[in-house]
């Protein structure tokens, strides 16, 4: 202490001490502040009813296949395997053909919409089957489309019912009206709505729905949220099948 001459300047010494203490305390307060009880951000609760929005891609964007193209190919391969019982050689050719078809859809070289892609895939599968197999396959494809339509029509009406409180006869009338005029894109909108827990419906034209609703129900329908997707050009979205509809790995490799 003597060497640095503090004993000769006691006021300076005191100030120096105070400064050191202050600096040390400031530092420790800073650290303490960092440990201060700052609660973690509240967990982001997400009710299924508020999940990601329905398909709202504008029609000039390519189909959303990335990452899921393989799944789409596998879904069709499993279906062909069951309904047409192809040989291993046929199966390999069909798989390659389907991959090419989906690649074309991704790159824009082939159709990629809900309207066109499924039928294009069916055509390319049929090229590798015998006449008898093709007959079975086409009949099954048709029935599969009908089942998809039935499931989606029923779900659409169940969704409408929650808001409009339909009577049994109204549900039946709407089922008839929708089934006769159903568009493939509407199935995708409904399936995605189910995946995401949403209630946004396709924008059904008035002539399909208005004749069967009461005035008050019609008013509510016009206020209900609707998908903004363009019906005829909606890109095929493999996400529509969701986790439940995705084949498991072991079945893919068989």
């Amino acid at each position, binding site marked *: 202490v003597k060497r640095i001459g503090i004993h000769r300047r006691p006021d300076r010494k005191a100030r120096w001490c105070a400064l050191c*203490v202050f600096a040390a305390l400031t530092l420790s307060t800073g650290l303490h502040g960092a440990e201060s009880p700052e609660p973690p951000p509240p967990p982001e609760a997400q009710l299924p009813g508020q999940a990601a929005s329905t398909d709202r891609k504008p029609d000039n964007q390519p189909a959303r296949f990335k990452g899921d193209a393989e799944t789409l190919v596998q879904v069709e391969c499993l279906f062909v395997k069951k309904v047409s019982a192809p040989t291993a050689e046929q199966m390999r050719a069909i798989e390659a053909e389907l991959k090419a078809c989906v690649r074309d859809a991704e790159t824009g070289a082939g159709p990629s919409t809900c309207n066109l892609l499924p039928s294009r895939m069916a055509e390319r599968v049929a090229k590798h089957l015998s006449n008898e197999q093709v007959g079975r396959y086409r009949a099954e494809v048709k029935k599969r489309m009908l089942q998809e339509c039935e*499931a989606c029509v029923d779900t659409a009406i169940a969704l409408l019912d929650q808001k409009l409180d339909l009577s049994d006869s109204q549900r039946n009338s709407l089922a008839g009206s929708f089934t006769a005029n159903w568009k493939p894109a509407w199935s995708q909108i409904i399936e995605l709505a189910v995946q995401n827990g949403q209630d946004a419906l396709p924008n059904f034209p008035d002539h399909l729905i208005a004749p069967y609703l009461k005035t008050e129900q019609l008013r509510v329908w016009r206020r209900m949220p609707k998908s903004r997707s363009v019906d005829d050009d909606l890109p095929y979205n493999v996400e529509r099948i969701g986790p439940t509809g995705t084949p498991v790995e072991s079945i893919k490799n068989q």
Partner: protein
Amino acid sequence: MTGHKTCERRGWLFAATLLAIVSASSNVRAWDDDDLSEPKVKASRNETPRLRAQDVDRAVENVIFGDNGLGSSHEQKLRERLRARIQQLSRSHSVSNEQEGKLLLAGEGDLRRFLDRVEELKGRIRSVSRDQIEWNRILRDAQPLQTQLRAGLFDRNSLFGKTLAKMGGSEQPASFVRTETDRSRFQHRAAVNMTVLRLSTALGLSDEQRTRLKAVLLEETRPVRSLSVVPTDLYSNSVYAQLRLVSEAKLKTLFEPWQWQALRIKLASAPKPREDARGLIEEAATIRERPALRRIGMRRAVLRASR
């Protein structure tokens, strides 16, 4: 020398005072955001700090209500839902003003009971520590309330539902219960169809397989029990979750061996019917009457309606 000592002592005294001031201010700073209604906690460093009240409230409300279109005033929005539900019923059935009043009163009771449970949960959680486990606890404890909200506060076990059922029995034509039963049946069929469609893509089912699977699901699974809006995914998932409970003997014969193997793998990871969601499955067996359920009041109402 004495002067030096005095100066030195004065310096240390100053430093000590400063230390005391800064130390006190740092303690205040650590807690001055805390707006807990109880007195400021003089916690030592070893004690676990408490959550701020508004953070607890926000977290609990976030878990239970989400955004869900409810905005800031949950109570008001829920009340609007109740009124909308009564208006819906008035549209489809001729409900008198007196009956509307009764339904409103019953619904208000359900609403108050639910909000009281939310407040009780907030109070319970305000006093606990803030580590990750406790946040998980918020999620866990809030889950039943969230499920109840999603399934609808005015279901058949609620005061609202019971009041409505009474109207079906004595004061109102049986159309009330019949309509709800028809609706429930239709929604269940839609959910079954959607589940079959999804399993069809996962397993490559033929038309015959789909038809048989649909018949099994309609027979073996139950509709969601609710008198109000249920999210679409809950319908669909409720059927898929119940698929786990269907006996193997009934399912296995529907599939090829490779499909069955894949289905078993899928079902192993399928959502289990949760404890808190179990109540959502229709107990009154409106699709299929079971002798074991004869004692259930709602079933009696259904039977009355069908006479």
